[in-house]
Protein backbone atom coordinates (compact mmCIF):
# COMPACT_ATOMS: atom_id res chain seq x y z
CA UNK A 1 0.00 0.00 0.00
CA UNK A 2 2.98 2.27 0.60
CA UNK A 3 3.99 1.99 -3.06
CA UNK A 4 0.50 2.91 -4.14
CA UNK A 5 0.51 5.96 -1.94
CA UNK A 6 3.98 6.94 -3.14
CA UNK A 7 2.83 6.70 -6.76
CA UNK A 8 -0.31 8.69 -6.09
CA UNK A 9 1.79 11.33 -4.45
CA UNK A 10 4.36 11.42 -7.24
CA UNK A 11 1.75 11.56 -10.01
CA UNK A 12 -0.64 13.97 -8.38
CA UNK A 13 -1.89 16.91 -10.35
CA UNK A 14 0.21 19.94 -9.58
CA UNK A 15 -0.11 23.50 -10.80
CA UNK A 16 3.04 24.98 -12.46
CA UNK A 17 5.02 27.58 -10.69
CA UNK A 18 3.86 31.14 -11.32
CA UNK A 19 5.30 32.61 -14.56
CA UNK A 20 6.09 29.14 -16.08
CA UNK A 21 4.30 29.80 -19.37
CA UNK A 22 5.92 33.21 -19.76
CA UNK A 23 9.39 31.72 -19.18
CA UNK A 24 8.82 29.01 -21.79
CA UNK A 25 7.64 31.55 -24.37
CA UNK A 26 10.57 33.79 -23.55
CA UNK A 27 13.02 30.91 -24.17
CA UNK A 28 11.40 30.09 -27.51
CA UNK A 29 11.72 33.69 -28.64
CA UNK A 30 15.35 33.80 -27.57
CA UNK A 31 16.22 30.65 -29.56
CA UNK A 32 17.92 31.02 -32.98
CA UNK A 33 15.48 30.83 -35.91
CA UNK A 34 16.74 27.47 -37.24
CA UNK A 35 15.99 25.76 -33.92
CA UNK A 36 12.42 26.96 -33.72
CA UNK A 37 11.29 24.17 -36.05
CA UNK A 38 11.24 24.24 -39.81
CA UNK A 39 7.93 24.68 -41.58
CA UNK A 40 6.57 21.52 -43.25
CA UNK A 41 6.29 23.18 -46.65
CA UNK A 42 8.90 25.07 -48.65
CA UNK A 43 8.95 28.83 -48.35
CA UNK A 44 8.08 29.29 -52.02
CA UNK A 45 4.80 27.51 -52.71
CA UNK A 46 5.02 28.20 -56.48
CA UNK A 47 8.07 26.00 -56.86
CA UNK A 48 6.50 23.36 -54.65
CA UNK A 49 3.38 23.31 -56.82
CA UNK A 50 5.42 23.27 -60.02
CA UNK A 51 7.41 20.29 -58.75
CA UNK A 52 4.23 18.46 -57.74
CA UNK A 53 2.67 19.20 -61.14
CA UNK A 54 5.81 17.95 -62.92
CA UNK A 55 5.80 14.71 -60.95
CA UNK A 56 2.09 14.21 -61.65
CA UNK A 57 2.55 14.96 -65.35
CA UNK A 58 5.54 12.60 -65.56
CA UNK A 59 3.50 9.87 -63.85
CA UNK A 60 0.59 10.40 -66.27
CA UNK A 61 2.85 10.44 -69.34
CA UNK A 62 4.78 7.44 -68.08
CA UNK A 63 1.56 5.53 -67.48
CA UNK A 64 0.24 6.44 -70.90
CA UNK A 65 3.50 5.41 -72.59
CA UNK A 66 3.48 2.08 -70.74
CA UNK A 67 -0.16 1.55 -71.71
CA UNK A 68 0.71 2.26 -75.37
CA UNK A 69 3.60 -0.21 -75.31
CA UNK A 70 1.46 -2.93 -73.70
CA UNK A 71 -1.41 -2.24 -76.11
CA UNK A 72 0.99 -2.34 -79.07
CA UNK A 73 2.35 -5.71 -77.97
CA UNK A 74 -1.17 -7.06 -77.48
CA UNK A 75 -2.16 -5.77 -80.92
CA UNK A 76 0.87 -7.27 -82.65
CA UNK A 77 0.25 -10.58 -80.91
CA UNK A 78 -3.44 -10.49 -81.87
CA UNK A 79 -2.46 -9.73 -85.47
CA UNK A 80 -0.07 -12.69 -85.56
CA UNK A 81 -2.77 -14.91 -84.10
CA UNK A 82 -5.30 -13.74 -86.68
CA UNK A 83 -2.87 -14.40 -89.52
CA UNK A 84 -2.03 -17.85 -88.13
CA UNK A 85 -5.71 -18.71 -87.68
CA UNK A 86 -6.65 -17.49 -91.13
CA UNK A 87 -3.76 -19.35 -92.73
CA UNK A 88 -4.71 -22.63 -91.05
CA UNK A 89 -8.41 -22.19 -91.81
CA UNK A 90 -7.72 -21.12 -95.39
CA UNK A 91 -5.39 -24.02 -95.96
CA UNK A 92 -7.94 -26.59 -94.78
CA UNK A 93 -10.80 -25.03 -96.75
CA UNK A 94 -8.69 -24.83 -99.89
CA UNK A 95 -7.63 -28.45 -99.50
CA UNK A 96 -11.28 -29.51 -99.17
CA UNK A 97 -12.24 -27.42 -102.19
CA UNK A 98 -9.42 -28.95 -104.25
CA UNK A 99 -10.51 -32.45 -103.29
CA UNK A 100 -14.10 -31.67 -104.28
CA UNK A 101 -12.95 -30.12 -107.57
CA UNK A 102 -10.70 -33.13 -108.15
CA UNK A 103 -13.72 -35.43 -107.93
CA UNK A 104 -15.56 -33.12 -110.35
CA UNK A 105 -12.76 -33.20 -112.93
CA UNK A 106 -12.22 -36.97 -112.55
CA UNK A 107 -15.75 -37.54 -113.80
Amino acid sequence: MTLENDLKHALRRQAPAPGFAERVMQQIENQPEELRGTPRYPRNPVWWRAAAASVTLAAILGGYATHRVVEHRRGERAKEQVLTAMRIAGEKVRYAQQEVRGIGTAD
Partner: protein
Amino acid sequence: MRKFILSLALIIVAVPASAQQIDLHFPELAEKADEVVDVTLDANMLRLAAKFLSGKDTDERAVREMIGGLDGIYVRSYEFSEAGQYDKNLINKIKSQLGPSWKPLVTVRSKTKDNVSIMADMHGDKVTGLVIIATEPREFTIVNISGPIDIDRLAELSGQFGIPEISKGRRHRDE
Protein backbone atom coordinates in the same frame (compact mmCIF):
# COMPACT_ATOMS: atom_id res chain seq x y z
CA MET B 1 -46.19 -13.83 -65.39
CA ARG B 2 -46.86 -13.34 -69.10
CA LYS B 3 -43.92 -10.91 -69.29
CA PHE B 4 -41.69 -13.42 -67.56
CA ILE B 5 -42.63 -16.19 -70.01
CA LEU B 6 -42.09 -13.81 -72.93
CA SER B 7 -38.66 -12.80 -71.62
CA LEU B 8 -37.72 -16.42 -71.07
CA ALA B 9 -38.83 -17.32 -74.58
CA LEU B 10 -36.78 -14.42 -76.00
CA ILE B 11 -33.71 -15.57 -74.11
CA ILE B 12 -34.17 -19.14 -75.32
CA VAL B 13 -34.50 -17.94 -78.93
CA ALA B 14 -31.68 -15.41 -78.62
CA VAL B 15 -29.07 -17.78 -77.27
CA PRO B 16 -28.83 -20.09 -80.31
CA ALA B 17 -29.19 -17.11 -82.64
CA SER B 18 -26.18 -15.42 -81.10
CA ALA B 19 -22.64 -16.40 -81.91
CA GLN B 20 -22.17 -19.98 -80.82
CA GLN B 21 -18.92 -20.69 -79.10
CA ILE B 22 -17.89 -24.29 -79.01
CA ASP B 23 -16.05 -25.87 -76.13
CA LEU B 24 -12.52 -26.31 -77.41
CA HIS B 25 -10.89 -27.20 -74.15
CA PHE B 26 -8.74 -30.30 -74.71
CA PRO B 27 -6.10 -30.38 -71.98
CA GLU B 28 -5.40 -34.08 -72.54
CA LEU B 29 -4.46 -33.41 -76.17
CA ALA B 30 -2.25 -30.48 -75.27
CA GLU B 31 -0.34 -32.69 -72.87
CA LYS B 32 0.28 -35.41 -75.46
CA ALA B 33 1.04 -33.13 -78.39
CA ASP B 34 4.51 -32.17 -79.55
CA GLU B 35 3.27 -28.94 -81.07
CA VAL B 36 0.22 -26.96 -80.09
CA VAL B 37 -1.33 -24.00 -81.84
CA ASP B 38 -3.82 -22.25 -79.60
CA VAL B 39 -5.57 -19.17 -80.94
CA THR B 40 -8.36 -17.54 -78.98
CA LEU B 41 -9.57 -14.23 -80.32
CA ASP B 42 -12.85 -12.73 -79.18
CA ALA B 43 -14.51 -9.74 -80.86
CA ASN B 44 -12.46 -7.22 -78.86
CA MET B 45 -9.18 -8.87 -79.73
CA LEU B 46 -10.21 -9.03 -83.39
CA ARG B 47 -10.92 -5.28 -83.38
CA LEU B 48 -7.52 -4.71 -81.81
CA ALA B 49 -5.81 -6.97 -84.37
CA ALA B 50 -7.58 -5.15 -87.20
CA LYS B 51 -5.91 -1.92 -86.12
CA PHE B 52 -2.52 -3.54 -86.59
CA LEU B 53 -3.25 -5.10 -89.97
CA SER B 54 -1.79 -2.95 -92.68
CA GLY B 55 -4.15 -1.30 -95.14
CA LYS B 56 -1.35 -1.12 -97.71
CA ASP B 57 -0.53 -4.83 -97.77
CA THR B 58 -3.06 -6.63 -100.00
CA ASP B 59 -3.18 -9.80 -97.90
CA GLU B 60 -3.46 -8.02 -94.60
CA ARG B 61 -6.14 -5.73 -95.98
CA ALA B 62 -8.12 -8.79 -97.11
CA VAL B 63 -7.84 -10.32 -93.65
CA ARG B 64 -8.84 -7.04 -92.05
CA GLU B 65 -11.97 -6.90 -94.19
CA MET B 66 -12.80 -10.51 -93.37
CA ILE B 67 -12.48 -10.20 -89.62
CA GLY B 68 -14.38 -6.91 -89.50
CA GLY B 69 -17.73 -8.51 -88.74
CA LEU B 70 -16.55 -11.57 -86.85
CA ASP B 71 -17.36 -12.37 -83.23
CA GLY B 72 -14.44 -14.67 -82.65
CA ILE B 73 -11.81 -16.98 -84.07
CA TYR B 74 -10.70 -20.05 -82.16
CA VAL B 75 -8.09 -22.52 -83.37
CA ARG B 76 -6.66 -25.58 -81.69
CA SER B 77 -4.12 -27.60 -83.60
CA TYR B 78 -2.19 -30.48 -82.12
CA GLU B 79 0.65 -32.34 -83.76
CA PHE B 80 1.78 -35.61 -82.23
CA SER B 81 4.99 -37.58 -82.56
CA GLU B 82 3.04 -40.82 -83.02
CA ALA B 83 -0.19 -41.78 -84.71
CA GLY B 84 -3.37 -42.50 -82.76
CA GLN B 85 -2.80 -40.12 -79.90
CA TYR B 86 -6.24 -38.55 -80.05
CA ASP B 87 -9.65 -40.08 -79.52
CA LYS B 88 -11.58 -40.20 -82.81
CA ASN B 89 -14.83 -39.76 -80.87
CA LEU B 90 -13.68 -36.21 -80.24
CA ILE B 91 -14.97 -35.28 -83.70
CA ASN B 92 -18.47 -36.49 -82.81
CA LYS B 93 -18.23 -34.73 -79.46
CA ILE B 94 -17.52 -31.44 -81.22
CA LYS B 95 -20.23 -32.00 -83.81
CA SER B 96 -22.76 -32.76 -81.08
CA GLN B 97 -22.28 -29.24 -79.72
CA LEU B 98 -23.52 -27.70 -82.95
CA GLY B 99 -27.13 -26.61 -83.15
CA PRO B 100 -29.69 -27.52 -85.83
CA SER B 101 -28.76 -24.52 -87.97
CA TRP B 102 -25.34 -26.05 -88.60
CA LYS B 103 -25.05 -27.89 -91.91
CA PRO B 104 -22.16 -30.02 -93.21
CA LEU B 105 -20.69 -28.32 -96.26
CA VAL B 106 -17.82 -30.58 -97.21
CA THR B 107 -16.50 -33.83 -95.82
CA VAL B 108 -13.27 -35.19 -97.22
CA ARG B 109 -12.23 -38.69 -96.19
CA SER B 110 -8.83 -39.91 -97.27
CA LYS B 111 -6.61 -42.77 -96.22
CA THR B 112 -3.45 -40.99 -97.28
CA LYS B 113 -4.18 -37.31 -96.71
CA ASP B 114 -6.22 -35.05 -94.39
CA ASN B 115 -9.76 -35.87 -93.37
CA VAL B 116 -11.63 -32.61 -93.35
CA SER B 117 -15.14 -31.76 -92.23
CA ILE B 118 -16.46 -28.27 -92.82
CA MET B 119 -19.70 -27.29 -91.15
CA ALA B 120 -21.43 -23.96 -91.52
CA ASP B 121 -23.98 -22.19 -89.40
CA MET B 122 -26.51 -21.30 -92.08
CA HIS B 123 -29.06 -18.54 -91.73
CA GLY B 124 -30.76 -18.43 -95.10
CA ASP B 125 -27.98 -18.09 -97.65
CA LYS B 126 -25.62 -16.54 -95.15
CA VAL B 127 -22.86 -18.37 -93.34
CA THR B 128 -22.70 -16.98 -89.81
CA GLY B 129 -20.26 -19.47 -88.39
CA LEU B 130 -17.81 -22.07 -89.49
CA VAL B 131 -16.27 -25.13 -87.93
CA ILE B 132 -13.43 -26.94 -89.65
CA ILE B 133 -12.19 -30.23 -88.26
CA ALA B 134 -9.09 -31.58 -89.95
CA THR B 135 -7.44 -34.79 -88.89
CA GLU B 136 -4.41 -36.76 -89.92
CA PRO B 137 -2.97 -39.78 -88.09
CA ARG B 138 -0.62 -37.45 -86.20
CA GLU B 139 -2.54 -34.22 -86.30
CA PHE B 140 -5.82 -32.89 -84.98
CA THR B 141 -6.99 -29.41 -85.92
CA ILE B 142 -10.21 -27.58 -85.20
CA VAL B 143 -11.08 -24.08 -86.30
CA ASN B 144 -14.17 -22.24 -85.13
CA ILE B 145 -14.98 -18.95 -86.81
CA SER B 146 -17.91 -17.16 -85.26
CA GLY B 147 -19.66 -14.57 -87.39
CA PRO B 148 -20.37 -13.96 -91.06
CA ILE B 149 -17.60 -15.37 -93.24
CA ASP B 150 -16.96 -15.71 -96.97
CA ILE B 151 -15.61 -19.24 -97.42
CA ASP B 152 -14.26 -18.62 -100.93
CA ARG B 153 -12.29 -15.63 -99.74
CA LEU B 154 -11.01 -17.66 -96.82
CA ALA B 155 -9.68 -20.31 -99.22
CA GLU B 156 -7.89 -17.61 -101.19
CA LEU B 157 -5.91 -16.65 -98.09
CA SER B 158 -4.14 -19.99 -97.83
CA GLY B 159 -0.36 -19.93 -97.71
CA GLN B 160 -0.15 -16.16 -97.73
CA PHE B 161 1.37 -13.59 -95.36
CA GLY B 162 4.88 -14.88 -96.01
CA ILE B 163 4.36 -17.71 -93.52
CA PRO B 164 5.22 -21.20 -94.80
CA GLU B 165 2.33 -23.65 -94.90
CA ILE B 166 2.44 -25.84 -91.81
CA SER B 167 0.87 -28.95 -93.32
CA LYS B 168 3.39 -29.16 -96.15
CA GLY B 169 6.20 -29.10 -93.63
CA ARG B 170 4.48 -31.69 -91.48
CA ARG B 171 3.93 -34.00 -94.41
CA HIS B 172 7.58 -33.83 -95.28
CA ARG B 173 8.39 -35.03 -91.81
CA ASP B 174 5.80 -37.79 -92.09
CA GLU B 175 7.47 -39.04 -95.26
